[in-house]
């Protein structure tokens, strides 16, 4: 027993990763394999998978396990053998804890793939070794590039079906390099795997002696999470969620005399770090002041960093409400009412210049108009082709006019402060995921 208590006591870090790639490339099977081989599948779950696999005659007489059933949890998914929506699974190794988002490959469900990838520290893009890079592979790679997912792994899957051929692997590596260079992605790791048989997933394969790189799990254990990479160089940003001013409504456990006049700004630090005594500025309003206290649920601390949820106390009282952004002094961008943006269109209804929308960023939602559609990404050349209309699954370049100026960071400088949603004002649907960026910098081509 002492061994277990030890591992439990360890401070573990978290890595969020998602799968991507074309339909049937083996994403769910790979996820099942990863869970299975890292002993994260419990007995009753495995029994259920074995029962259903047998009923469906998976693996013929031998009676193999269809590991995709571990994540394809909806009735419709099991019936059709495809993934429709993201499944989240949780597992850990002795090194780390993981949140895994198994995404659908089908074009129709690309919106769900974007959902899974948006919060990912790493994305594993699968390619069927027999088919190589497909249009959907390029679409998913474009999404990954657009979202600036910091770690990209490509798994060349079903390597068992091409006799573990080094040549096939090398050809795909060459094809990929053209695309990822065109997208200015660096550090793409390419691993030959068989999700079905487990090669190079958790166990190193004896059938790929020509491959000396890491296994999938080894990579996942080592890759840095977004906050580890970005906390160093991104300026402090704190979108105010709520003002906590309890007055009469104090919690029964706190001392009424001490906290009657409490005023704290509640929020989650979206980037950087902050110390008591630091100078800050606030938009809108351009107020400048100092931080006099940082409270985390009743505990006062001297120092906090992303992604902690805290209450900030400021030296002076200003008219600061939900939607305001507190930043390190002289780092907040000027508030603007016209932004350049790259958007990923998720709704079946198309859009044109003139469309009235809501734009949600940080904790603020403002009215906007798509003032110009510049063009949309051609998935063969990756270039932006001129277009008037944006259709579902398009990656498009647009200009958006905002009713109220916003202190928008460039997404390339600050992920959480440069991202936004486009919302349909009448029915509230999420139409698109957007990033504010200088469009010159995302002119890709191959």
């Amino acid at each position: 027993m002492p061994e277990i208590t030890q591992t439990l006591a360890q401070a573990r870090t978290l890595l969020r990763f998602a799968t991507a790639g074309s339909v049937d490339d083996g994403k769910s099977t790979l996820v099942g394999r990863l869970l299975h081989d890292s002993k994260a599948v419990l007995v009753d779950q495995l029994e259920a998978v074995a029962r259903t696999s047998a009923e469906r005659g998976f693996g013929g007489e031998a009676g193999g396990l269809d590991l995709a059933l571990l994540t394809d949890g909806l009735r419709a998914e099991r019936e059709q053998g495809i993934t429709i929506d993201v499944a989240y699974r949780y597992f850990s190794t002795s090194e780390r804890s993981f949140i895994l988002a198994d995404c659908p490959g089908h074009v129709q469900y690309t919106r769900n793939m974007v959902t899974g990838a948006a919060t990912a520290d790493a994305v594993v893009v699968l390619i069927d070794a027999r088919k190589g890079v497909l249009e959907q592979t390029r679409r998913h790679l474009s999404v990954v590039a657009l979202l600036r997912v910091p770690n990209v792994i490509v798994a060349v899957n079903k390597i068992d079906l091409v006799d573990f051929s080094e040549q096939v692997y090398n050809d795909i590596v060459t094809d990929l390099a053209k695309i990822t260079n065109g997208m200015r992605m660096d550090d793409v790791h390419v691993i030959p795997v068989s999700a079905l048989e487990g090669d190079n997933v958790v166990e190193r394969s004896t059938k790929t002696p020509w491959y000396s790189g890491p296994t999938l799990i080894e990579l996942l254990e080592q890759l840095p999470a977004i906050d580890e990479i970005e906390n160093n160089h991104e300026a402090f940003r704190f979108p105010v969620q709520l003002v906590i001013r309890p007055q009469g409504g104090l919690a029964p456990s706190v001392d009424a005399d001490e906290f009657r006049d409490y005023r704290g700004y509640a929020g989650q630090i979206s980037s950087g770090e902050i110390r008591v005594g630091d100078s800050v500025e606030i938009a809108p309003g351009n107020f400048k002041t100092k931080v006099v206290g940082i409270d985390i649920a009743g505990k006062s601390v001297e120092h906090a960093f992303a992604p902690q949820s805290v209450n900030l106390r400021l030296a002076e009282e200003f008219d600061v409400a939900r939607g305001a952004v507190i930043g390190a002094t002289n780092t907040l961008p000027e508030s603007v009412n016209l932004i350049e943006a790259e958007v990923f269109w998720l709704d079946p209804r198309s859009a044109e210049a003139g469309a009235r929308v809501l734009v949600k960023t940080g904790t603020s939602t403002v009215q906007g108009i798509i003032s110009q559609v510049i063009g949309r990404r051609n998935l063969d050349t990756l270039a932006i082709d001129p277009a008037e209309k944006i259709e579902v699954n398009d990656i498009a370049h647009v200009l958006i006019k905002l009713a109220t100026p916003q202190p928008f960071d460039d997404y390339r400088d600050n992920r959480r402060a440069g991202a936004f949603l486009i919302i349909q004002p009448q029915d509230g649907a999420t139409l698109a995921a957007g990033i504010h960026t200088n469009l010159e910098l995302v002119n890709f081509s191959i």
Partner: protein
Amino acid sequence: MSQKLSENRLDLLDTLESESIHIIREVVAEFERPVLLFSGGKDSVVVLHLATKAFWPGKVPFPVLHVDTGHNFPEVIEFRDRTVEKLGLRLEVASVQDYIDRGVLQERPDGTRNPLQTLPLLDAITAGKHDAVFGGARRDEDKARAKERIISLRDEFGQWDPRNQRPELWNLYNGRHLPGQHVRAFPISNWTELDIWRYIEREGIELPPLYYAHEREVYQRDGMWRAVGPVSEPTPDEVVETRLVRYRTVGDMSCTGAVESPARTISDVVIEVAASTLTERGATRADDRISEAAMEDRKKEGYF
């Protein structure tokens, strides 16, 4: 990887806590009348604890709602009332027994009342004009729950449409909805059972006593230990024995099984959960054993 990595790293529990607090605050900021489903079970207790942290030093700014099946363990009802009192909250109760007494709902042949909760729940949401309902569901509990968004839209009939969920991007939650619709909010979506227990240990959170090993009169049914009680009588062939047991989930006496366990303290439980080879629902819930898609079907109808 040439970039220099930050020393500022949160451990797993702090990361999860921070994410949950952010979600709870977003819902309170963007909705008019949120309510928290509170059963006295460990997950809803943790959500309530997170809410006290999110609004400190203010009090939790929403009421709690309990769907009382009439089959609850008395210790849990006692715990529920004491917790609500301690935090100065308002408790709304939706009573399944009332619906049965009025003839609106009929007792099921198998005697379980879990599936009967949906109608009283939806009526209570409408009556309270609640536009957001916090739940303690976790994605690791079940494969249908593994598909759920953190902020999940429900139509006028309380239905979940798993094939047509709203995309959910970054930490930007879109809770816009039409009149009559509401959202379910799941702040601890990303926590596992083990995370919950490690957090309970770290924070010293009080739970109903039946989560810890105690002697109880039980009998075997469907491979589970059932407590002897007014709504869970053994048949003449079922042998009643006294065993050292605890509960991994707390639902109705009529469908929740106990597990044999010597774990009397929080840290005993943490060790036991870490070593467990069964999921909590597989081990203890008769209602989820009905079919592979039992949870999906109930959720589509508006269950939590």
